[in-house]
């Protein structure tokens, strides 16, 4: 019997026992669709993290005070005893020393209460330079950002985050006045919502003022700053920028690499950290789904064994009519792999459907990966073949007399 005949016979056998074939495939269907969906959910979560972090600004490096070392925890202090100063930021801004840097935004941040009449709202007051807007990839929905002149003169102006603005002012915020620690600030603009839904690091609940304004409002003395946002000249040279800043600051602070009192974080590192958690979860869930796929394969073997027993007379007849052991083995192998592959295809369809429906239900993005889909399909085929081998060889080994005599 040639291959096309074998496939036709296999398809007929699968069709002849439709309900049983579907039940057999169920294990594979569930396995394949859950593998694809878990990997899709993991991928979706990773994509979301990436887009969240990307929304902080592209090719961004963040220099923060203190450093984490493997043995002694955090060195240096945050806030009150910041080891970063404005002069560090100015040094980084020097193109001759750090050529791979495009923009530098030194930032102070502190928690303050904004007051509008009787409304009181606690938020993060960010003091920075005009480059902040570009470095953080933000845009304005109303009004304008402060100018370099306003930074130089530490003008009493503030740009509010969209959430902050709507909390304090029911109508338009631009042109209104808020009071911070007794000083009045004019609202000159409102930031466009960043669209990021992460509640902990809300990008939309903030107030941005010129650096000097923030320092005087919070009563901070000296030139300490909370962090320095650095935008690399290009994504490819971000590594170089990292090295340049590192060397510069080590030199300025007069410390050795092992005693560094600052930390430079790239977006990539943030993404990496977030993703490694996601990846662990995905591998775990995918593993569980993979096991169900394996169980599905065992189901195929079980049914194929039943099928061999049930069709023992058919096997005997086919042998009497001239089927060689090899063609019988092939017939049952093809049948098993068809069950596997059909289960895989249905599983993929369900996964595609699930990927379309699920995000609406659980508020989690699902991105289908072609690789996972292909791998799941191949696995289901391999399971069909792998678990079909034993039943098929049992069928092939039957002698025609045994098979014909059985009732």
């Amino acid at each position, binding site marked *: 019997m040639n291959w096309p005949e074998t496939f036709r016979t296999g398809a007929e056998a699968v069709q002849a026992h439709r309900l049983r074939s579907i039940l057999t495939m169920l294990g594979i269907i569930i396995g394949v669709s859950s593998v694809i969906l878990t990997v899709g959910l993991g991928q979706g979560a990773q994509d979301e993290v990436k887009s969240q972090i990307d929304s902080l600004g592209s090719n961004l490096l963040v220099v923060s005070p203190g450093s984490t070392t493997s043995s002694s925890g955090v060195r240096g202090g945050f806030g009150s005893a910041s080891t970063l100063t404005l002069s560090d930021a100015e040094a980084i801004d020097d193109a001759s020393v750090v050529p791979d840097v495009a923009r530098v935004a030194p930032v102070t941040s502190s928690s303050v209460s904004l007051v509008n009449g009787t409304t009181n709202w606690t938020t993060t007051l960010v003091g920075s330079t005009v480059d902040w807007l570009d470095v953080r990839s933000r845009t304005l929905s109303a009004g304008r950002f402060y100018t370099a002149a306003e930074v130089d003169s530490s003008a009493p102006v503030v740009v509010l985050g969209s959430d902050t603005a709507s909390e304090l002012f029911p109508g338009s915020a631009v042109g209104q006045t808020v009071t911070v620690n007794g000083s009045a600030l004019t609202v000159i603009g409102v930031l466009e919502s960043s669209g990021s839904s992460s509640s902990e690091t809300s990008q939309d609940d903030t107030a941005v003022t010129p650096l000097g304004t923030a320092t005087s409002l919070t009563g901070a003395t000296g030139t300490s700053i909370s962090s320095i946002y650095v935008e690399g000249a290009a994504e490819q040279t971000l590594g170089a920028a990292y090295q340049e800043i590192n060397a510069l600051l080590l030199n300025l602070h007069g410390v050795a690499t092992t005693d560094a009192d600052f930390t430079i974080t790239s977006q990539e590192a943030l993404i990496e950290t977030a993703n490694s958690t996601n990846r662990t979860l995905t591998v775990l869930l995918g593993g569980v789904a993979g096991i169900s796929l394996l169980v599905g394969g065992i189901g195929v073997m079980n049914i194929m064994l039943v099928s061999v027993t049930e069709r023992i007379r058919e096997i005997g007849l086919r042998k009497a009519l*001239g089927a060689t*052991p090899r063609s019988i083995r092939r017939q049952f192998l093809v049948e098993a792999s068809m069950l596997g592959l059909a289960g895989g295809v249905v599983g993929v369809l369900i996964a595609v459907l699930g990927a379309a429906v699920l995000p609406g239900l659980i508020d989690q993005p699902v991105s289908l990966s072609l690789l996972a889909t292909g791998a799941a399909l191949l696995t289901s085929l391999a399971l069909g073949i792998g678990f079909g081998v034993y039943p098929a060889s049992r069928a092939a080994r039957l002698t025609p007399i045994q098979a014909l005599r059985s009732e």
Partner: protein
Amino acid sequence: MTAIIELSDVWKSYETGAMSVHALRGIDARIDEGEYVAVIGPSGSGKSTLMNILGCLDVPTSGEYHLAGEDVSTMTEAELAEVRNRRIGFVFQQFNLLASMPAWRNVELPLVYAGVPRHERRERALATLARVGLAERADHKPGELSGGQQQRVAVARALVTEPALILADEPTGNLDSDSTTDVLELFDELSALGRTIVLITHEHDVAARADRQLVVRDGQITSPVGAA
């Protein structure tokens, strides 16, 4: 006359524990082309074992079996499958039709294993069905046919490869008397057309229709071997 079947000193033994049971004890037989031979004997006589060996479903423990000139007593399973396909048409007591397939698909089955192309298979299957008088039943499934019709489909399946030998194992065992007559008349016709038929039965009136009878008893042939 050319011999279709030549058995010389064929033994078949089965080992059951320490004992060995001799189902066939030195069978010598010759059946020529065009003969219609009935193999008759009570159950336990070795009749079924003989039928298995004649049908190349089993090989003798010792002795030689030539089928249409070929020594089949030492063939492998795959070779035997090919010989069965090419040389032998089986008719079984239980019909052994595949219930999910229409009559013509059952008839073409041996041609599938012979590697005959699809369209030719259908033509030959339909022609053979017409020959057994079932042309208009070609698309019926076995379940929609009477016992006699089913057995005629099985005969058509046995004929479709134009085999050297038609081997019928109790072909009327499951049929009522009308259908029995029906099927036996078909065998008579085939015999008249020059087919070689070996019919295994335990019914004397069925055996009586054959040209010659081989009586098997205790693993040996007790009647004259005939044209040896």
